[in-house]
Protein backbone atom coordinates (compact mmCIF):
# COMPACT_ATOMS: atom_id res chain seq x y z
CA UNK A 1 0.00 0.00 0.00
CA UNK A 2 1.48 3.38 -0.91
CA UNK A 3 1.48 6.46 1.31
CA UNK A 4 -1.38 8.15 -0.46
CA UNK A 5 -3.67 5.16 -0.12
CA UNK A 6 -2.68 4.67 3.52
CA UNK A 7 -3.51 8.29 4.35
CA UNK A 8 -6.80 8.03 2.46
CA UNK A 9 -7.78 4.93 4.44
CA UNK A 10 -6.71 6.48 7.74
CA UNK A 11 -8.76 9.62 7.20
CA UNK A 12 -11.75 7.60 6.06
CA UNK A 13 -11.54 5.40 9.16
CA UNK A 14 -11.49 8.49 11.41
CA UNK A 15 -14.30 10.38 9.74
CA UNK A 16 -16.76 7.76 8.53
CA UNK A 17 -18.89 7.79 11.67
CA UNK A 18 -18.72 11.53 12.36
CA UNK A 19 -21.86 13.59 11.70
CA UNK A 20 -22.29 14.12 7.96
CA UNK A 21 -22.26 17.90 8.38
CA UNK A 22 -18.59 18.14 9.30
CA UNK A 23 -17.20 14.87 7.99
CA UNK A 24 -15.67 16.48 4.91
CA UNK A 25 -14.21 19.43 6.71
CA UNK A 26 -12.54 17.24 9.33
CA UNK A 27 -11.15 15.07 6.51
CA UNK A 28 -9.73 18.12 4.76
CA UNK A 29 -8.20 19.48 7.93
CA UNK A 30 -6.64 16.13 8.80
CA UNK A 31 -5.21 15.87 5.30
CA UNK A 32 -3.68 19.30 5.71
CA UNK A 33 -2.21 18.35 9.10
CA UNK A 34 -0.75 15.10 7.77
CA UNK A 35 0.74 16.86 4.71
CA UNK A 36 2.30 19.51 6.91
CA UNK A 37 3.77 17.02 9.38
CA UNK A 38 5.07 14.84 6.57
CA UNK A 39 6.70 17.75 4.77
CA UNK A 40 8.52 18.77 7.94
CA UNK A 41 9.57 15.23 8.72
CA UNK A 42 11.05 14.54 5.29
CA UNK A 43 12.70 17.99 5.07
CA UNK A 44 11.58 18.72 1.54
CA UNK A 45 12.44 15.29 0.18
CA UNK A 46 9.75 12.93 -1.07
CA UNK A 47 8.28 11.37 2.09
CA UNK A 48 8.76 7.63 2.31
CA UNK A 49 6.09 5.11 3.28
CA UNK A 50 7.88 4.71 6.60
CA UNK A 51 7.54 8.47 7.20
CA UNK A 52 3.82 8.27 6.52
CA UNK A 53 3.40 5.38 8.90
CA UNK A 54 5.33 7.16 11.64
CA UNK A 55 3.22 10.30 11.25
CA UNK A 56 -0.04 8.37 11.38
CA UNK A 57 1.13 6.32 14.37
CA UNK A 58 1.85 9.56 16.18
CA UNK A 59 -1.67 10.76 15.50
CA UNK A 60 -2.96 7.60 17.16
CA UNK A 61 -5.42 4.90 16.24
CA UNK A 62 -8.30 6.02 14.01
CA UNK A 63 -10.95 5.01 16.54
CA UNK A 64 -9.22 6.98 19.33
CA UNK A 65 -8.98 10.05 17.14
CA UNK A 66 -12.61 9.66 16.06
CA UNK A 67 -13.58 9.49 19.73
CA UNK A 68 -11.71 12.75 20.39
CA UNK A 69 -13.73 14.41 17.65
CA UNK A 70 -16.92 13.27 19.32
CA UNK A 71 -16.31 13.48 23.06
CA UNK A 72 -18.46 11.15 25.07
CA UNK A 73 -19.72 12.72 28.24
CA UNK A 74 -22.42 10.05 28.54
CA UNK A 75 -25.00 12.71 29.29
CA UNK A 76 -27.13 11.50 26.40
CA UNK A 77 -29.06 8.30 25.83
CA UNK A 78 -27.26 7.78 22.53
CA UNK A 79 -24.29 10.04 21.80
CA UNK A 80 -21.96 10.41 18.84
CA UNK A 81 -20.65 8.60 16.89
CA UNK A 82 -23.36 6.07 17.67
CA UNK A 83 -26.10 8.63 17.02
CA UNK A 84 -25.33 8.99 13.29
CA UNK A 85 -25.37 5.25 12.82
CA UNK A 86 -28.53 5.02 14.94
CA UNK A 87 -30.34 7.52 12.71
CA UNK A 88 -29.37 5.61 9.58
CA UNK A 89 -30.53 2.27 10.98
CA UNK A 90 -33.72 3.79 12.38
CA UNK A 91 -34.71 5.22 8.99
CA UNK A 92 -34.29 1.87 7.29
CA UNK A 93 -36.11 -0.09 9.97
CA UNK A 94 -39.06 2.33 10.08
CA UNK A 95 -39.35 2.32 6.30
CA UNK A 96 -39.26 -1.47 6.14
CA UNK A 97 -41.75 -1.82 9.00
CA UNK A 98 -44.16 0.65 7.38
CA UNK A 99 -44.12 -1.16 4.05
CA UNK A 100 -44.22 -4.65 5.55
CA UNK A 101 -46.97 -3.82 8.02
CA UNK A 102 -49.02 -2.01 5.38
CA UNK A 103 -49.03 -5.03 3.10
CA UNK A 104 -49.65 -7.50 5.92
CA UNK A 105 -52.41 -5.35 7.40
CA UNK A 106 -54.06 -4.91 4.02
CA UNK A 107 -53.97 -8.66 3.41
CA UNK A 108 -55.55 -9.27 6.80
CA UNK A 109 -58.08 -6.49 6.36
CA UNK A 110 -59.28 -7.77 3.03
CA UNK A 111 -59.47 -11.32 4.24
CA UNK A 112 -61.57 -10.49 7.28
CA UNK A 113 -65.18 -10.72 6.25
CA UNK A 114 -66.90 -8.28 8.57
CA UNK A 115 -66.26 -4.64 9.24
CA UNK A 116 -66.94 -1.37 7.50
CA UNK A 117 -64.29 0.42 5.49
CA UNK A 118 -63.63 2.79 8.37
CA UNK A 119 -63.10 -0.02 10.85
CA UNK A 120 -60.72 -1.75 8.47
CA UNK A 121 -58.82 1.48 7.80
CA UNK A 122 -58.60 2.06 11.53
CA UNK A 123 -57.16 -1.35 12.19
CA UNK A 124 -54.67 -1.02 9.34
CA UNK A 125 -53.44 2.33 10.66
CA UNK A 126 -53.42 0.88 14.16
CA UNK A 127 -51.16 -1.99 13.24
CA UNK A 128 -48.79 0.26 11.28
CA UNK A 129 -48.52 2.60 14.28
CA UNK A 130 -47.88 -0.35 16.57
CA UNK A 131 -45.21 -1.69 14.24
CA UNK A 132 -43.51 1.71 14.05
CA UNK A 133 -43.49 2.08 17.83
CA UNK A 134 -42.08 -1.41 18.20
CA UNK A 135 -39.34 -0.82 15.61
CA UNK A 136 -38.44 2.52 17.18
CA UNK A 137 -38.30 1.04 20.67
CA UNK A 138 -36.07 -1.87 19.68
CA UNK A 139 -33.60 0.12 17.62
CA UNK A 140 -33.37 2.80 20.32
CA UNK A 141 -32.90 0.23 23.07
CA UNK A 142 -30.17 -1.62 21.18
CA UNK A 143 -28.23 1.57 20.38
CA UNK A 144 -28.64 2.94 23.90
CA UNK A 145 -27.09 -0.25 25.25
CA UNK A 146 -24.28 -0.17 22.65
CA UNK A 147 -23.50 3.44 23.57
CA UNK A 148 -23.77 3.12 27.34
CA UNK A 149 -21.73 -0.10 27.38
CA UNK A 150 -19.10 1.38 25.06
CA UNK A 151 -19.41 -1.41 22.53
CA UNK A 152 -16.98 -0.47 19.78
CA UNK A 153 -18.52 0.16 16.37
CA UNK A 154 -15.21 -0.67 14.72
CA UNK A 155 -12.64 -3.22 15.64
CA UNK A 156 -9.50 -1.65 17.09
CA UNK A 157 -6.86 -1.49 14.44
CA UNK A 158 -3.41 -2.35 15.73
CA UNK A 159 -1.54 -2.24 12.48
CA UNK A 160 -1.96 0.54 9.94
CA UNK A 161 -1.66 -2.03 7.15
CA UNK A 162 -4.95 -3.50 8.34
CA UNK A 163 -6.92 -0.33 7.62
CA UNK A 164 -9.84 -1.21 5.38
CA UNK A 165 -9.92 0.33 1.91
CA UNK A 166 -12.10 3.32 1.15
CA UNK A 167 -14.98 1.89 -0.88
CA UNK A 168 -14.91 2.83 -4.53
CA UNK A 169 -18.04 3.41 -6.53
CA UNK A 170 -18.17 0.02 -8.24
CA UNK A 171 -17.47 -1.90 -5.03
CA UNK A 172 -19.96 0.08 -3.08
CA UNK A 173 -23.23 -1.55 -2.08
CA UNK A 174 -26.10 0.86 -2.60
CA UNK A 175 -28.22 1.64 0.42
CA UNK A 176 -31.39 1.30 -1.68
CA UNK A 177 -30.33 -2.26 -2.52
CA UNK A 178 -30.00 -3.15 1.15
CA UNK A 179 -33.30 -1.48 2.04
CA UNK A 180 -35.16 -3.31 -0.72
CA UNK A 181 -33.91 -6.72 0.37
CA UNK A 182 -34.63 -5.86 4.01
CA UNK A 183 -38.24 -4.98 3.12
CA UNK A 184 -38.64 -8.26 1.25
CA UNK A 185 -37.19 -10.15 4.19
CA UNK A 186 -39.69 -8.54 6.58
CA UNK A 187 -42.52 -9.39 4.17
CA UNK A 188 -41.28 -12.96 3.90
CA UNK A 189 -41.20 -13.23 7.69
CA UNK A 190 -44.69 -11.79 8.07
CA UNK A 191 -46.34 -13.89 5.36
CA UNK A 192 -44.74 -17.26 6.00
CA UNK A 193 -43.96 -17.23 9.72
CA UNK A 194 -46.24 -14.73 11.46
CA UNK A 195 -49.45 -15.33 9.49
CA UNK A 196 -48.90 -18.73 7.79
CA UNK A 197 -52.67 -19.22 7.57
CA UNK A 198 -52.79 -16.25 5.22
CA UNK A 199 -49.45 -16.66 3.44
CA UNK A 200 -50.23 -15.62 -0.13
CA UNK A 201 -53.99 -15.34 -0.52
CA UNK A 202 -55.21 -16.40 -3.89
CA UNK A 203 -58.96 -16.09 -3.63
CA UNK A 204 -60.98 -14.01 -1.23
CA UNK A 205 -64.57 -15.09 -0.88
CA UNK A 206 -67.30 -14.43 1.66
CA UNK A 207 -66.72 -17.96 2.96
CA UNK A 208 -63.06 -17.19 3.64
CA UNK A 209 -59.82 -16.99 1.79
CA UNK A 210 -57.88 -19.50 -0.20
CA UNK A 211 -54.13 -19.22 0.21
CA UNK A 212 -51.66 -20.75 -2.19
CA UNK A 213 -49.55 -22.74 0.25
CA UNK A 214 -50.52 -25.32 2.80
CA UNK A 215 -50.38 -23.58 6.21
CA UNK A 216 -49.72 -26.84 8.09
CA UNK A 217 -46.52 -27.35 6.12
CA UNK A 218 -45.46 -23.77 6.77
CA UNK A 219 -46.04 -24.21 10.51
CA UNK A 220 -44.17 -27.53 10.56
CA UNK A 221 -41.17 -25.96 8.79
CA UNK A 222 -41.38 -22.75 10.84
CA UNK A 223 -37.81 -22.99 12.21
CA UNK A 224 -36.38 -23.41 8.74
CA UNK A 225 -38.21 -20.26 7.62
CA UNK A 226 -36.92 -18.39 10.68
CA UNK A 227 -33.38 -19.62 9.95
CA UNK A 228 -33.60 -18.32 6.38
CA UNK A 229 -34.86 -14.95 7.65
CA UNK A 230 -32.01 -14.80 10.16
CA UNK A 231 -29.45 -15.58 7.45
CA UNK A 232 -30.95 -12.86 5.24
CA UNK A 233 -30.90 -10.29 8.05
CA UNK A 234 -27.31 -11.23 8.89
CA UNK A 235 -26.30 -10.74 5.26
CA UNK A 236 -28.05 -7.37 5.09
CA UNK A 237 -26.48 -6.29 8.38
CA UNK A 238 -23.00 -7.15 7.11
CA UNK A 239 -23.73 -5.31 3.87
CA UNK A 240 -24.97 -2.31 5.83
CA UNK A 241 -21.90 -2.21 8.06
CA UNK A 242 -19.24 -2.74 5.41
CA UNK A 243 -21.07 -1.07 2.50
CA UNK A 244 -18.80 -2.74 0.00
CA UNK A 245 -18.25 -6.15 -1.50
CA UNK A 246 -15.82 -7.99 0.71
CA UNK A 247 -15.17 -11.44 2.05
CA UNK A 248 -17.70 -11.22 4.93
CA UNK A 249 -20.38 -10.10 2.46
CA UNK A 250 -19.53 -13.01 0.19
CA UNK A 251 -19.62 -15.53 3.03
CA UNK A 252 -22.97 -14.34 4.38
CA UNK A 253 -24.43 -14.23 0.86
CA UNK A 254 -23.28 -17.81 0.34
CA UNK A 255 -24.78 -18.80 3.69
CA UNK A 256 -28.07 -17.15 2.83
CA UNK A 257 -28.21 -18.92 -0.50
CA UNK A 258 -27.46 -22.30 1.04
CA UNK A 259 -30.24 -21.75 3.59
CA UNK A 260 -32.66 -20.67 0.87
CA UNK A 261 -31.88 -23.70 -1.28
CA UNK A 262 -32.21 -26.03 1.71
CA UNK A 263 -35.57 -24.47 2.53
CA UNK A 264 -36.89 -24.66 -1.00
CA UNK A 265 -35.79 -28.27 -1.44
CA UNK A 266 -37.23 -29.34 1.92
CA UNK A 267 -40.39 -27.33 1.47
CA UNK A 268 -41.22 -28.41 -2.05
CA UNK A 269 -40.43 -32.06 -1.45
CA UNK A 270 -43.02 -32.15 1.33
CA UNK A 271 -46.31 -33.75 0.27
CA UNK A 272 -49.24 -31.33 -0.04
CA UNK A 273 -47.03 -28.27 -0.22
CA UNK A 274 -49.89 -26.46 -1.95
CA UNK A 275 -53.18 -25.79 -0.30
CA UNK A 276 -55.45 -28.57 -1.68
CA UNK A 277 -58.29 -26.04 -1.96
CA UNK A 278 -56.05 -23.85 -4.08
CA UNK A 279 -55.13 -26.71 -6.40
CA UNK A 280 -58.81 -27.49 -6.85
CA UNK A 281 -59.82 -23.85 -7.40
CA UNK A 282 -57.05 -23.25 -9.86
CA UNK A 283 -57.80 -26.48 -11.68
CA UNK A 284 -61.42 -25.49 -12.14
CA UNK A 285 -60.67 -21.89 -13.03
CA UNK A 286 -57.76 -22.20 -15.41
CA UNK A 287 -57.13 -25.83 -16.27
CA UNK A 288 -54.35 -24.88 -18.65
CA UNK A 289 -52.20 -23.79 -15.72
CA UNK A 290 -51.73 -27.41 -14.90
CA UNK A 291 -49.18 -29.29 -16.82
CA UNK A 292 -50.69 -32.46 -18.26
CA UNK A 293 -49.73 -35.29 -15.97
CA UNK A 294 -48.24 -37.31 -18.78
CA UNK A 295 -45.99 -34.50 -20.04
CA UNK A 296 -42.61 -36.21 -20.51
CA UNK A 297 -40.15 -33.84 -18.72
CA UNK A 298 -42.45 -33.87 -15.73
CA UNK A 299 -41.72 -37.53 -15.10
CA UNK A 300 -38.19 -36.54 -14.06
CA UNK A 301 -39.49 -34.47 -11.16
CA UNK A 302 -40.25 -35.92 -7.74
CA UNK A 303 -43.84 -36.92 -7.15
CA UNK A 304 -44.69 -33.90 -4.99
CA UNK A 305 -43.59 -31.44 -7.63
CA UNK A 306 -45.65 -32.95 -10.41
CA UNK A 307 -48.80 -31.43 -9.07
CA UNK A 308 -47.32 -27.94 -9.07
CA UNK A 309 -48.80 -25.52 -11.54
CA UNK A 310 -46.31 -24.61 -14.22
CA UNK A 311 -46.37 -20.96 -13.18
CA UNK A 312 -45.18 -21.77 -9.68
CA UNK A 313 -42.41 -23.98 -11.01
CA UNK A 314 -41.26 -21.11 -13.20
CA UNK A 315 -41.33 -18.70 -10.24
CA UNK A 316 -39.39 -21.19 -8.16
CA UNK A 317 -36.81 -21.76 -10.88
CA UNK A 318 -36.53 -18.01 -11.42
CA UNK A 319 -35.96 -17.48 -7.72
CA UNK A 320 -33.15 -20.01 -7.57
CA UNK A 321 -31.62 -18.53 -10.72
CA UNK A 322 -31.84 -15.05 -9.18
CA UNK A 323 -29.99 -16.16 -6.03
CA UNK A 324 -27.36 -17.84 -8.16
CA UNK A 325 -26.81 -14.66 -10.20
CA UNK A 326 -26.53 -12.61 -7.03
CA UNK A 327 -23.99 -15.03 -5.63
CA UNK A 328 -21.93 -14.88 -8.82
CA UNK A 329 -22.11 -11.09 -8.85
CA UNK A 330 -20.98 -10.93 -5.23
CA UNK A 331 -18.09 -13.30 -5.82
CA UNK A 332 -16.93 -11.41 -8.91
CA UNK A 333 -16.99 -8.09 -7.06
CA UNK A 334 -15.34 -9.60 -4.01
CA UNK A 335 -12.59 -11.16 -6.08
CA UNK A 336 -11.95 -7.84 -7.80
CA UNK A 337 -11.66 -6.10 -4.46
CA UNK A 338 -9.37 -8.70 -2.95
CA UNK A 339 -7.14 -8.52 -6.01
CA UNK A 340 -7.03 -4.72 -5.87
Amino acid sequence: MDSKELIKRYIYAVTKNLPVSNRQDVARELQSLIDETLAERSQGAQPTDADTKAVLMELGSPSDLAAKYSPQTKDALIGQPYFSVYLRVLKIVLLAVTLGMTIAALVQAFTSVEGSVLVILGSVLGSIWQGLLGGFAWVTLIFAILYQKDVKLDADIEDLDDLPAVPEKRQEIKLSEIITSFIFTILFLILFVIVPQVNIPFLVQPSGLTSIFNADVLIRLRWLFIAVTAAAVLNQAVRFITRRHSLPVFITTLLEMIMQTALLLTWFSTPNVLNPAFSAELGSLVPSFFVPANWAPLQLLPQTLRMMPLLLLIVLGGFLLGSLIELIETSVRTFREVKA
Partner: protein
Amino acid sequence: MNDLNAIYANFVVELRRGVTNLVVLNQCQQPSYGYQLVKNLAERGVPLEANTVYPLLRRLEDQGLLRSDWDTSAEKPRKYYQITEDGLELLAQITASWRESVKNIEAILEE
Protein backbone atom coordinates in the same frame (compact mmCIF):
# COMPACT_ATOMS: atom_id res chain seq x y z
CA MET B 1 9.78 3.08 40.23
CA ASN B 2 8.20 2.56 36.86
CA ASP B 3 4.84 2.84 38.53
CA LEU B 4 5.76 6.20 39.98
CA ASN B 5 6.88 7.42 36.58
CA ALA B 6 3.58 6.38 35.07
CA ILE B 7 1.67 8.13 37.85
CA TYR B 8 3.77 11.26 37.36
CA ALA B 9 3.13 11.26 33.61
CA ASN B 10 -0.55 10.89 34.28
CA PHE B 11 -0.49 13.79 36.78
CA VAL B 12 1.16 16.07 34.25
CA VAL B 13 -1.41 15.17 31.61
CA GLU B 14 -4.24 15.86 34.05
CA LEU B 15 -2.73 19.19 35.13
CA ARG B 16 -2.27 20.30 31.55
CA ARG B 17 -5.71 19.22 30.42
CA GLY B 18 -7.45 21.97 32.38
CA VAL B 19 -5.41 24.77 30.89
CA THR B 20 -5.38 23.54 27.29
CA ASN B 21 -8.47 25.56 26.47
CA LEU B 22 -6.94 28.66 28.02
CA VAL B 23 -3.69 28.35 26.11
CA VAL B 24 -5.33 27.58 22.77
CA LEU B 25 -7.84 30.42 23.09
CA ASN B 26 -5.01 32.77 24.02
CA GLN B 27 -2.95 31.76 20.99
CA CYS B 28 -5.90 32.25 18.66
CA GLN B 29 -5.94 35.99 19.23
CA GLN B 30 -3.85 35.91 16.06
CA PRO B 31 -5.26 33.80 13.21
CA SER B 32 -3.53 30.43 13.55
CA TYR B 33 -3.83 26.96 12.12
CA GLY B 34 -3.58 23.73 14.09
CA TYR B 35 -0.10 22.62 13.12
CA GLN B 36 1.36 26.08 13.79
CA LEU B 37 -0.22 26.09 17.26
CA VAL B 38 1.22 22.69 18.08
CA LYS B 39 4.70 23.77 16.97
CA ASN B 40 4.63 27.14 18.73
CA LEU B 41 3.39 25.72 22.00
CA ALA B 42 5.92 22.87 21.93
CA GLU B 43 8.75 25.38 21.42
CA ARG B 44 7.52 27.33 24.41
CA GLY B 45 7.46 24.31 26.69
CA VAL B 46 3.77 23.47 26.49
CA PRO B 47 3.74 20.34 24.36
CA LEU B 48 0.24 19.39 23.19
CA GLU B 49 -0.56 16.54 20.84
CA ALA B 50 -2.00 17.36 17.43
CA ASN B 51 -4.73 14.80 18.10
CA THR B 52 -5.80 16.89 21.09
CA VAL B 53 -5.46 20.34 19.54
CA TYR B 54 -7.35 19.65 16.31
CA PRO B 55 -10.53 18.27 17.88
CA LEU B 56 -10.32 21.01 20.54
CA LEU B 57 -10.20 23.78 17.92
CA ARG B 58 -13.30 22.35 16.34
CA ARG B 59 -15.09 22.10 19.69
CA LEU B 60 -14.24 25.72 20.56
CA GLU B 61 -15.59 26.72 17.16
CA ASP B 62 -18.81 24.81 17.79
CA GLN B 63 -19.12 26.70 21.08
CA GLY B 64 -18.81 29.98 19.22
CA LEU B 65 -15.52 30.94 20.85
CA LEU B 66 -13.51 30.63 17.64
CA ARG B 67 -14.33 31.14 14.00
CA SER B 68 -12.48 29.59 11.11
CA ASP B 69 -11.53 30.25 7.50
CA TRP B 70 -9.84 28.10 4.92
CA ASP B 71 -6.88 29.81 3.32
CA THR B 72 -6.45 28.24 -0.07
CA SER B 73 -4.21 30.92 -1.55
CA ALA B 74 -1.01 29.20 -0.42
CA GLU B 75 0.30 25.96 -1.88
CA LYS B 76 -1.05 24.02 1.05
CA PRO B 77 -4.63 24.79 2.11
CA ARG B 78 -4.83 25.65 5.80
CA LYS B 79 -7.70 26.20 8.16
CA TYR B 80 -7.13 29.32 10.24
CA TYR B 81 -8.89 29.85 13.54
CA GLN B 82 -9.41 33.20 15.22
CA ILE B 83 -11.02 34.14 18.49
CA THR B 84 -14.52 35.69 18.47
CA GLU B 85 -16.00 38.41 20.68
CA ASP B 86 -17.48 35.78 22.96
CA GLY B 87 -14.16 33.98 22.99
CA LEU B 88 -12.32 37.12 24.04
CA GLU B 89 -14.74 37.69 26.89
CA LEU B 90 -14.36 34.14 28.09
CA LEU B 91 -10.59 34.29 27.67
CA ALA B 92 -10.44 37.33 29.99
CA GLN B 93 -12.48 35.49 32.57
CA ILE B 94 -10.53 32.23 32.53
CA THR B 95 -7.21 34.11 32.47
CA ALA B 96 -8.22 35.94 35.62
CA SER B 97 -9.43 32.71 37.16
CA TRP B 98 -6.14 31.00 36.28
CA ARG B 99 -4.04 33.77 37.81
CA GLU B 100 -6.13 33.70 40.94
CA SER B 101 -5.77 29.91 41.22
CA VAL B 102 -2.01 30.03 40.67
CA LYS B 103 -1.65 32.73 43.32
CA ASN B 104 -3.70 30.81 45.86
CA ILE B 105 -2.10 27.46 45.16
CA GLU B 106 1.35 29.04 45.28
CA ALA B 107 0.48 30.44 48.69
CA ILE B 108 -0.52 26.98 49.89
CA LEU B 109 2.64 25.42 48.50
CA GLU B 110 4.80 28.08 50.15
CA GLU B 111 3.38 27.45 53.62
